[in-house]
């Protein structure tokens, strides 16, 4: 404050004070304006989300209308049956192979173990081997330089010796199902192999043959079952062809309509540029271009649909064939399969049969009632977005925007995170605040606060590099086979993401809960003590209930943080846009998913500005914004009530 401003050198007096008053109003207005900036930002956020979002629904409706007019929707009605049929035959196929392979488990293991050993050795000697390959291939008639060959060969031999001794990496893979002689023979053969030979070792071939023979044996008694499956599977051929052909036709219609629209837009753009031109020549050129821009006629949807709708009879026949095949397969299926897994698939099939049958019966009336001119309502578009189970973008056929899979993904991950963070965060808060000594407190608090300072992208990186792999490898161990969902197939899944988000939520919940406990007047505890309550009674019956609304608010704020978090879920959740398969029980937590935040981060940078897809992402942002707003608002309400209760 060394600079002396003009005001302080002027002696205090009337002129100065009047001048001061005048400017004071200005200053006040300036500061008020800045305070208003927060309101402006909040309003801008809402305005821009809503502006783009509001644009989404009409545009999406337009797309859906074209989807209907061009007849894509018609084909999709039939396609639903095809997909269902394929799922059904896949179930049968899986049941069949599970039954066949049940008998060959040992052969599979033996064959795999041998292959793993070969793979281990191959990996270890790969560099000199491929170098040798290139040198010998690239060499002309005079041959490769002898010195180079020699050094590469030497390198190959030394690496090979290392690998045979199991030195690199984790060592030679274990082969519990191969006998010692077999293993030794295999290693010997690999050791003696020419560097450039690509022949499989004899043992590997023999084991594959054994496996094939065993599979053939096992499938013999199941030949009837196989035929039943084949007959069932092939029943969809007609429908498949029909859908492919009509699909091509309606897609052409849609493309023609899109092209026409583009041309019209182009003409309009060119015409709009005409008034701005300077010379007559340029103007004439532009007008000519505009005229030439539209080369196609508007599409006559009714005429274009004729050939597709004209095949209704064929659709009917194909549908009847599927229904007949279902009837046949119902009768011909074996009632039981010996293998447990096979039986499970079969049971799933049995359970789905009737539903599928009903769907088949529904299809034809639906197709006949289908009308390409029926308008798509805005309400239907909006509810289609809110209840839609598909988020399909970037496809050739038709893009769909349904928020359910993303919402469910976000929700499950939040659930996992909170079920970790609530007991840990609240428990730690109670311990630190009520039970721990001063020295422990001084260590625990800063450590957990430091946890809060870790940027989420770092946690996401650790999730990919450390936690995901660690969890997956742990789940492979036989001793954990009883855990539902183990072994984990996907390294990136909801559980890993949930764990990391839990770690992020713990500090929030911890410090806010601790504050809440701190704010409980000490008179409460003292009164409780005085009445002869034990320490535990005081903590759990007096202090905690008094702080409960603060703790709940802490949990809600933690939830807000978890739902709104982006980088961890983008990196770790696995990005599968599908409603998780809840039939797997608790195993559902180990499936990958996509989230509201993740989809924005993944796709916003890639979509053209102003497109339907771009706008859909803003609507997702809007949904996210209001969810988090509602959560935070409830938390504030809780805190407010708490404050009143304290008075």
């Amino acid at each position, binding site marked *: 404050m060394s600079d002396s401003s003009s005001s302080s050198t002027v002696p205090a007096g009337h002129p100065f004070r009047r001048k001061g008053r005048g400017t004071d109003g200005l200053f006040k207005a300036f500061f008020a304006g800045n305070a208003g900036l927060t309101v402006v930002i909040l309003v801008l956020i809402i305005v821009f989300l809503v502006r783009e979002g509001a644009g989404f629904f009409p545009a999406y409706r337009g797309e859906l209308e074209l989807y209907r007019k061009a007849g894509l929707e018609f084909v999709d009605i039939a396609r639903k049956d095809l997909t269902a049929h394929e799922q059904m035959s896949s179930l049968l196929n899986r049941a069949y192979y599970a039954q066949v392979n049940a008998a060959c488990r040992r052969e599979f293991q033996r064959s795999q173990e041998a292959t793993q050993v070969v793979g281990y050795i191959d990996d270890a000697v790969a560099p000199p081997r491929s170098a040798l390959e290139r040198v010998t291939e690239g060499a002309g008639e005079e041959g490769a330089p002898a010195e180079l060959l020699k050094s590469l060969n030497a390198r190959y031999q030394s690496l090979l010796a290392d690998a045979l001794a199991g030195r690199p990496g984790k060592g030679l893979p274990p082969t519990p199902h191969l006998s010692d002689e077999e293993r030794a023979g295999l290693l010997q053969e690999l050791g003696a192999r020419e560097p450039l030979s690509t022949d499989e070792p004899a043992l590997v071939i023999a084991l594959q043959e054994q496996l094939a023979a065993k599979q053939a044996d096992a499938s013999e008694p199941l030949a009837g079952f196989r035929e039943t499956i084949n007959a069932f599977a092939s029943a969809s051929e007609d429908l498949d062809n029909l859908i492919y052909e009509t699909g091509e036709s309606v897609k052409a219609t849609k493309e023609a309509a899109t092209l026409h629209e583009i041309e019209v837009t182009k003409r309009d753009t060119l015409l709009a540029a005409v008034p701005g031109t300077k010379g007559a020549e340029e103007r004439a050129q532009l007008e000519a271009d505009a005229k030439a821009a539209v080369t196609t006629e508007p599409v006559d949807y009714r005429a274009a649909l004729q050939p597709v709708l004209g095949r209704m009879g064929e659709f009917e026949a194909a549908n009847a064939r599927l229904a007949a095949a279902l009837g046949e397969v119902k009768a011909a299926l074996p009632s039981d399969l010996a293998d447990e897994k096979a039986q499970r698939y079969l049971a799933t099939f049995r359970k789905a049969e009737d539903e599928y049958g009903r769907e088949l019966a529904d299809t034809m009336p639906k197709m006949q009632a289908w009308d390409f001119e029926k308008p798509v309502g805005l309400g239907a578009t909006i509810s289609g977005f809110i209840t839609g189970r598909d988020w399909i*973008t*970037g496809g050739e056929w038709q893009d769909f925007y349904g928020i359910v899979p993303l919402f469910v993904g976000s929700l499950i991950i939040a659930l996992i995170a909170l079920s970790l963070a609530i007991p840990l965060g609240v428990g730690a808060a109670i311990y630190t605040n009520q039970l721990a000594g001063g020295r422990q407190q001084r260590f625990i608090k800063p450590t957990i606060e430091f946890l809060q300072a870790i940027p989420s992208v770092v946690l996401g990186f650790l999730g990919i590099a450390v936690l995901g792999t660690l969890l997956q490898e742990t789940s492979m161990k036989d001793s954990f086979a009883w855990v539902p969902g183990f072994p984990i197939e996907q390294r990136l899944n909801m559980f890993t993401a949930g764990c990391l988000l839990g770690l992020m939520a713990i500090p929030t919940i911890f410090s806010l809960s601790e504050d809440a406990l701190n704010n409980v007047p000490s008179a409460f505890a003292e009164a409780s003590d005085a009445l002869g309550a034990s320490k535990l009674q005081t903590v759990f019956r007096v202090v905690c209930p008094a702080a409960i609304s603060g703790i709940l608010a802490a949990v809600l704020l933690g939830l807000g943080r978890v739902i709104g978090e982006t980088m961890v879920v983008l990196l770790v959740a696995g990005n599968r846009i599908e409603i998780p398969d809840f039939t797997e029980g608790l195993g559902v937590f180990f499936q990958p998913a996509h989230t509201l935040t993740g989809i924005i981060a993944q796709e916003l940078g890639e979509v053209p500005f102003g497109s339907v897809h771009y706008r859909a992402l803003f609507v997702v942002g809007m949904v996210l914004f209001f969810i988090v707003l509602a959560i935070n608002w409830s938390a504030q309400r809780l805190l407010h009530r708490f404050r009143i209760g304290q008075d």
Partner: protein
Amino acid sequence: MRNTIRFAAASLFAGAMLAATAGAQTISLKGSDTLGAKLVPQLAESFKSKNDGVKFEIAAEGSSTAFPALANGTAHIGMSSRQAKPEEITAAQAKGIKLKEIEACHDMIVVIVNKGNSVKKLTKDQVAKIFTGQVKDWSEVGGAPGAISVYTRNTSSGTYKDWQKLAMKDRNYAPSSQKLAGNEQIAEEVSKNKGGIGYVGLAYAKKSGTAPVTIDGVAPIAANARTYAYSRACYLYIPENADATAKAFADFAISPEGQKIAENLGFVPNH
């Protein structure tokens, strides 16, 4: 004092609104990850070693990002693993930019599986069924029992669309497929998942822990480029009125030297 700082900050803020022209010697490329993750950076590095003072900015987020960027003038060269759509060309034209298409190289899309997977051969039909979700278990295509996990690129990628065309008869991907950011990530996940299957550019098929799959009896190696089922061309798009440096770089990409770099990375040269 404080006021001066404030006014400086304020004028800095206001000044930011002024447009200024970017440096001329920087070439900015946008688009396909197939080209932009490895080939173009290495072409750029090699080009830089010959032309002092040229700088590059490369953003590889998917082919669809190339054309809006070219039209807006935020990129000098677009990279694409598919041909431009008519509406993309029109959109650029409407802004007075005529795009020149340059075939940079050919690429084969290779199906990869985990190294421990016993399935190393598939038919085109099986591949289509796996990616559309009709086949869900490896035992259905002759492997050891185990669920199939499908890894795909994200929707803006040219490979995502090309694959739909080349391998899936334009049907939609299985909803259970996982959308990953780039080729490397697909290879990484497949190498970590015993039941994984994915597709990558030939340049990325060598990753340890994964194995390429032979399709209809044709192995995915450069020598089979003509007979292999899933081959496609990759393109560079450059405005006709681009500056000389950008043009020189595009020419370098298709020069024998540039093609040699492409070949080393596993792309198939044009000739």
